[in-house]
């Protein structure tokens, strides 16, 4: 479908963008556009005007700030894949970014868009949640920092207010002896949505798991922290049978839907396998990572 006659705005500064957001109530924010333009063309959403963030340089930075990495919302998956700091501290995020769509789309899409569109199968949020990332939301009046996990309220729903903009993502550099991994199951090797995905994190202290999280993607209305599975792991010595038990709990915690890609049954089965495999990989990484 040919796109409707849309007004196009491309502010050059964040301040301008925030003002436009207040002024143009019917406008949609466009980051990379890889999701929004597809939906507009299919007539799934409508927009009178677009506010493109493409020209706002301050949203494209990657910087280390205290013990965190700060990624501007307009950083692309391609930049995540090739950035030395991210490669060093968050190999799992690099893997998640690599698993997304296609090279062409990865150089258009943005981390902010991947989060803010709140698609249940989005590839970056599970790893970011496992890494305890938080978001910076800004509007003309105020600024707030929120936990990423709390950002999502449902499929395509977030706590972000109309006049608010997700401007950056803060990811604390993981403590020593921490491993994070991401596994995604999809129906073909490239250009495919996740049928189910799991990100897990393990931090070891004296051979015991001091901190763990298992985050599930595409099996709930929003990325899901599998609380019971995560809790089970903490304070225990890692072992295959422990991981198997955690995996089986994660399977129960998942609440997927049936759709064209998979049945509920299959998604749950996948979660169990992916959880076990991801935990094994995170453990390996934790053991290797002296901090």
């Amino acid at each position, binding site marked *: 479908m040919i796109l409707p*006659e849309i007004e196009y705005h*491309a502010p050059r500064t964040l301040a301008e963008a925030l003002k436009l957001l207040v002024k143009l109530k019917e406008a949609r924010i466009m980051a990379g556009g890889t999701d929004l333009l597809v939906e507009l063309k299919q007539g799934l959403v409508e927009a009178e005007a*677009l506010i493109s963030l493409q020209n706002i340089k301050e949203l494209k930075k990657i910087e280390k700030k205290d013990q965190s990495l700060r990624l501007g919302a307009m950083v692309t998956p391609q930049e995540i894949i090739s950035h030395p700091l991210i490669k060093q501290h968050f190999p799992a995020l690099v893997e998640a970014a690599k698993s997304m769509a296609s*090279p062409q789309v990865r150089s258009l899409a943005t981390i902010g868009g991947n989060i803010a569109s709140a698609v249940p199968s989005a590839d970056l949020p599970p790893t970011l949640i496992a890494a305890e990332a938080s978001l910076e939301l800004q509007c003309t009046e105020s600024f707030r920092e929120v936990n990423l996990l709390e950002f999502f309220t449902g499929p395509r729903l977030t706590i972000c207010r109309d006049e608010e903009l997700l401007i950056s993502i803060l990811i604390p550099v993981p403590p020593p002896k921490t491993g994070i991994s991401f596994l995604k199951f999809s129906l073909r*090797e490239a250009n495919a949505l996740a049928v189910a995905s799991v990100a897990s994190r393990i931090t070891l202290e004296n051979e015991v798991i001091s901190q763990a999280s298992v985050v599930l993607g595409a099996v709930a209305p929003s990325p899901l922290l599998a609380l019971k599975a995560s809790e089970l792991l903490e304070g225990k010595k890692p072992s295959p049978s422990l991981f198997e038990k955690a995996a089986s709990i994660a399977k129960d915690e998942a609440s997927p839907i049936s759709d064209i890609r998979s049945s509920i049954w299959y998604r749950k*089965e996948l979660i169990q396998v992916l959880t076990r495999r991801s935990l094994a990989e995170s453990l390996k990484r934790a053991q290797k990572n002296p901090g």
Partner: protein
Amino acid sequence: MEEIKKQHRLLLLKVNGEDHSVAVQGGETLLDVVRDKLRLTGTKKGCNLGVCGACTVLLNGEPKNSCLLLAAECEGAEITTIEGIAQEGQLHPLQRAFINQGAIQCGFCTPGMVLSALALIEDNPNPSEEEIKEALSGNLCRCTGYTGIIRAVKEWRKYLKTEEPPSPSYDLDKFKTVGKSLPRVDAASKVTGQAKFTADYYIENMLFGKILHSPIPHGRIKSIDAKKALSLPGVKLILTGQDVPEITYGVSPARYDEHVLAKEVVRYVGDEVAAVIAVDEETAEKALDLIQVEYEELPSVFSPMEALQEGAPQLHDRYKNNINTHVDHHFGDVEKGFAEADHVREEEFVGNHVYQNPVEPHASIAYWENDGSTLVLYSSTQVAHYVHYMLARVLDIPLGKIRVISPPVGGGFGGKAETTPLDLITALASQKTGRPVKMVYSRQEMFLHGRGRHKQHMKFKIGVKKDGKITAFQSRIYLDGGAYSSFGVITAYYAGSMIPTLYHIPNYRYEGFRIMTNKPACGAMRGHGTPQPRFAFECLLTMIAEDLGIDPVEIRLRNAMDPNTRTCNDLDIRSCEFKKTLAEAANKSGWKQKYGKLPPGKGIGIGCGGFVSGAGYAIYRGQVQRSSEKKPETFAKKAMFPHANAIVKISEDGTAAVLLIQAAEIGQGALTVLSQMCAEALGISLPRVRIRAEDSDLSPLDLGAYSSRTTLMGGNAVVMASNDVLAKLFALVSKMWNCDQEELEARDNQIFHKKDKSKTMEWAEAARQYFNDQGPLVGTGWYKPPEGLGGDYKGAAVGTSPAFSFSTSVCECSVDLETGKVSIEKFADYHDCGTPINPQAVHAQVEGAIVMGTGETIMEEVVYDKKGNILNPNLHDYLLMTIKDAPEIFSGIVDSYEPQGPYGAKEVGEGATLPVLAAVAHAIANAAGVWIKELPITSEKILKALRAKKGK
């Protein structure tokens, strides 16, 4: 009402180093601006949703989907399109690699593919295979199986300085041009973006049309109110069922059952209800929303089994109980055959409804020339003549008043083998408006138009002796036809007729039912009706071999077809090197070392196949004539007109041969192999031959690209026309040299006296003299299939052919036994295509068929909801294999010679698909220990079967 509401802004775009100022709307994509405003049409629109990658451009050196970029976002960026790659007339080495390594077929994905590859090599001149696959994973190709593309990117540095010959493979010494892996004659135009597909044409003063599709699966149209739509500024015409001829159209003359636009009843979600013609696409689309249609909804039915039940909703009065076609064939005596068997096994298999999904969407442009008396139609068709014939029928004008132009087609696979609503609506609308009208399907509309593969429900039973020799075979098939006949009558016959061509089957019964359902019509797709039955038969044969402890290769060898055999259903097999394909594929794959010896999760599987080299009979009966003027004719066992015709016209200076034949280039290489045969027969080199296939005013009738007919039928006509030229030339030269014509020979652009070596002459010089003495040097040729093909029973014509191909595929895969995930790792395939006219093109067909066939086996399926809506009418959700899914492929050709074929050649295009499905299914069964008998064999089905087995 406001006349102009559109807000345009002047943008400065830098494309290929040149500045363009363009007036652009906020919502316009870079793709639409580059194509429609700058007319750089090398950038293709394939899916328009960021999946296919055909629209890839470089933005500051990075590949991006131009359909996902607003033009407004690109101001200030360096934009590179395919037209900007060659510099000062010199191709980039990567482009030369694409040409020479066989990386190009239909050429529609090529521009995007080249740009993605270019971005890679500029960053990393020596990429690994893995890096190549990653870089090209956002570019879908439906033709090549990606094999040639990977090779080209790997080898591009070899083309830095000079043009290298293509990788040598199977060059035949006995010929000069035939049997050589020469680059495609259309490759250069496709790799530069110069090749124009139908949608790339813009005719002055052109209007644009869009179709309003039915939103309900079955209903009566009570009223259509188009007033609002018509009053929208820019709308020129609205057509509804009231405005189109009463006359029906379709494919099989006995079952013409479609109207250009629905007259009264809509029968599936997508049925054509109205058409809007407007100044541009956007206006036409907007007007669609303003048309108000009132329907009386009727009950609908979506499964063939339910449609057969008493009291089921009826789609057409003429098809009682929704049975569109019923076939009942019985050869020999199956009861007796099963009684004689030592082992009998019966299984049920279910196929899948897959869609061809060529990367190029269907397009048509029509206008009327010569004071409005002659229709000119550009169509993305693979069978221009049947479109021509159908236009004459529906418009009720002579064929002579129609000129069909068929530009290169960006993939067809059967989905472009019939007349589309676009062809007919543009013709009617351009007549009414007096202006050219263009229409292009969106990807979703392609799915709605349908004509994909019939889903077949198959119950198969084979009886064998202890040694595995087949005594009887019985099948019962229900084909889900969708709402109209399309090719379906033929499909239903093909589903049975081709089974006995591979093995000796003494007793055979086939019962087939094609059933109407409220879904898009199914049609002919690569292998027409036969891949699913072949899949089922091959799987069952393997199961039986495993029951008896006979090696699956061995059981096939024991039953394999022999040359010069008449099958039980009266098909005449001539050349047949099936056994050689079995032996070679087994050998190449290391079958003996692997079968039964692989660890759990690893598997190897076999499948065989074959196909016709052109249908023995044309689709319509009688002469080439408007159908309303024909008297009903009974079926005669001979061709009523030549199926292929060629003219070879030598340029006045003698240096070029222009080959005129209406063959369709859909990516398969038709233009190249026909040119090669022309050059061979004339004794001149390939660069001296130029082929013109696209214009019915210039090129004589050829039935185009269906039933894998071009090489054999077109080739025979081309050779005859070339020989006609040569005879005329030899008559002249023999007079000059005072010798017999038989003593002359043409080769290497020279004419020789066979014995007197002192007598030679430049071919061009001789031709020049001919022109100076006698005027144009022109030869004509034609081909009719042999008379008397087939038996004397109803439906005997389907499956007849002058020659049959044979092939064997061995597939290796691994299955993750915890998730069911399949990786197809390797293929070894051998094909009997007679003499390969262009071995590289043969391999390219095989490689493409393997990837398409594998995708069909493990991931492709059109899915419907309970109301007949397609749930995945896009390339996000309908899964085609990407370059990262494609296996490593070895393609081999066995020595074979077909006496009916030109230079001994027969088909490869469709036959290459046939062995693939079963080879994959068997490899998966071998790896996982469970047979999945319902396509597609998804990871979920595998895991379910593994659990069920464990639970036992």
